[in-house]
């Protein structure tokens, strides 16, 4: 297969397998199919990244129609980088989801609807990968909706009825966000007469002073900000993350917001252009909302009792760090944002997986319920310690690398305010995670009969393997940073068009 063909195959593969998964009678077969698809996508993504690093970007023309008339799928270093993160997280999550086909999975998703779940994840990842590779703004909208619809369905699979209202809330806000994006695309099309990203970016500088263009850009950015859950548009995220089944939350934390971040960077930096947005208040706004996200939502995380909710608020804070990286408008800032995207995907997916495993042996995800779990589930708890350290940014873990890179970028711009925000944010993260570790390791279970189910379930092998793959990755990319940092830097330089 040529590289160009692989670009379309990686999107089509999950899209084609999804309906098959839905009709196969056995959850086990559905799982194996999904796992095979995930492996295939991951291998293709690795090859694509190597191809891009080797010979630069390339594009696939759908139906043989050359752009700007036809739709093209375009791959550059940034896209290939995000594609690899997506497929890697997807693969690990599918490994973890193997538990759904066993007895222990009943706590998450009923066996009967497990095939539906696998079909939905495949549709979701197909949409997310589509957003990353497409070179057409309207096509981006379509993929955004494919991914979103699958996500709403997955969130509603949660055990409690609250999952339904959380899914509905996300549906309403997500649809408003997507429609805003659509309005923006329409206005930009009215001005530029094209939907192709590359052509639009060449036409942008002349048209930027028009009010329609400016309005269009605003709509696009706000629409994507809603999907990305940038503070203060994050209201749907804590509910959705808390109520969704753990495996869904793990998948969403590692992929969904990351892709929305990708789309925001793609639209602002490469379509609208660096000079264009430098003249608008956008960088300043991004810095402010990023800083507010870090401080406010980290503080909110401290007040929560539900572990999943603590981590969900922390996710909004982490999005803040990434947005700050973009707001700095330098190669270093973007690099930091991209590395943080990668590191946070590993870290947060790992943490949510760990919570899912802990839930097997606790009544709920509230803090008191996990008291004494450090002794009862030593391996899971050890992985929680590693990933939690990575989230805080302790040296030697992946989280440290990206926070250091961001500090560096802020120092270079002499943005000491941002430096302060990052430090305070890390301290706040320390507080809410130490609270969790403290309860796990140093508190005895209050009432044994209340908080512990009678039998201790053995943790299924796929779940613990998936968790430890991510925990080790957190350590690995904290110590051997050449690959993640250099690719992120290359991605940042190519997207900014500087050498």
């Amino acid at each position, binding site marked *: 297969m040529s590289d160009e063909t692989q670009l379309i195959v990686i999107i089509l593969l999950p899209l084609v397998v999804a309906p098959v998964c839905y009709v196969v009678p056995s959850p086990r077969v559905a799982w194996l199919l999904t796992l095979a698809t995930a492996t295939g996508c991951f291998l293709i993504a690795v090859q694509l990244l190597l191809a891009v690093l080797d010979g630069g970007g390339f594009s696939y023309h759908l139906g043989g129609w050359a752009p700007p008339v036809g739709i093209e799928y375009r791959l550059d270093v940034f896209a290939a980088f995000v594609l690899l993160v997506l497929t890697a997280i997807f693969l690990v999550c599918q490994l973890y989801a193997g538990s759904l086909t066993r007895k222990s999975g009943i706590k998450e998703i009923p066996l009967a609807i497990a095939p539906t779940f696998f079909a939905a994840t495949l549709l979701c990842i197909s949409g997310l990968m589509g957003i990353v590779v497409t070179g057409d703004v309207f096509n981006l909208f379509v993929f955004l909706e494919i991914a979103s619809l699958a996500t709403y369905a997955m969130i509603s699979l949660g055990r409690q*009825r609250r999952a339904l209202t959380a899914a509905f809330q996300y549906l*309403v806000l997500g649809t408003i966000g997507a429609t805003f994006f659509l309005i923006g695309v329409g206005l930009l099309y009215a001005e530029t007469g094209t939907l192709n990203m590359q052509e639009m970016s060449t036409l942008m500088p002349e048209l930027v002073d028009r009010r329609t263009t400016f309005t269009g850009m605003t709509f696009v950015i706000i629409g994507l900000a809603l999907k990305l859950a940038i503070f203060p548009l994050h209201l749907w995220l804590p509910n959705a993350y808390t109520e969704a089944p753990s495996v869904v939350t793990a998948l969403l934390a590692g992929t969904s917001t990351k892709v929305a971040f990708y789309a925001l960077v793609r639209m602002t930096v490469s379509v609208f252009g660096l000079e264009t947005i430098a003249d608008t208040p956008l960088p300043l706004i991004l810095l402010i909302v990023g800083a507010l996200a870090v401080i406010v939502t980290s503080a909110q995380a401290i007040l929560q009792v539900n572990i999943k909710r603590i981590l969900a608020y922390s996710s909004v804070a982490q999005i803040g760090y990434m947005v700050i990286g973009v707001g700095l408008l330098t190669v270093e800032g973007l690099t930091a944002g991209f590395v943080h995207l990668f590191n946070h995907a590993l870290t947060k997916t790992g943490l949510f997986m760990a919570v899912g495993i802990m839930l097997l042996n606790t009544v709920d995800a509230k803090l008191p319920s996990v008291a004494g779990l450090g002794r009862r589930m030593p391996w899971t708890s050890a992985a929680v310690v590693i990933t939690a350290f990575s989230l805080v940014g302790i040296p030697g873990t992946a989280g440290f690398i990206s926070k250091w890179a961001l500090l560096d970028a802020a120092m270079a711009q002499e943005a000491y305010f941002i430096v302060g925000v990052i430090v305070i944010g890390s301290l706040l993260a320390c507080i809410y995670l130490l609270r969790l570790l403290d309860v796990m390791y140093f508190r005895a279970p209050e009432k044994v009969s209340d908080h512990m189910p009678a039998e201790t379930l053995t943790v299924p092998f796929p779940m613990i393997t998936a968790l430890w793959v991510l925990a080790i990755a957190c350590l690995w990319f904290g110590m051997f940073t050449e690959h993640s940092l250099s690719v992120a830097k290359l991605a940042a330089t190519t997207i900014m068009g500087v050498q």
Partner: protein
Amino acid sequence: MTDFVLQHFNYWVVIFLMMIGMYTVISRGHLLKKVIGLNIFQTSVFILYISIGYIEGGTVPIVAGQVVGNTGDVVYANPLPHVLILTAIVVGVSTTALALALIIRIRDAYGTLEENDILKLDQDSDG
């Protein structure tokens, strides 16, 4: 001023519908009404796109009895926004279907569709 208003008549309709839709989504507590508001909001965008494709004096973009590329003086309306909006309508229909499916399940689980009642039920189950 009147000219300006009248010339952009369709765009005023778009803005009017958009505001009605948004306001309904925000102000109504009933989940079904929220979905209706969402639909009105999306419909306004459809009209926006179709307005963009309109060209004064333009005709239906179908080349009849002529070779493509030799269309003479005939001006055609831009067909692309129409095609785009067909896709967006499909997306809108799917979203509505999913929203209604969720509403049915919420109704089964809570016995009500009023947002305030649902919030209250959730708080009660916490206590």
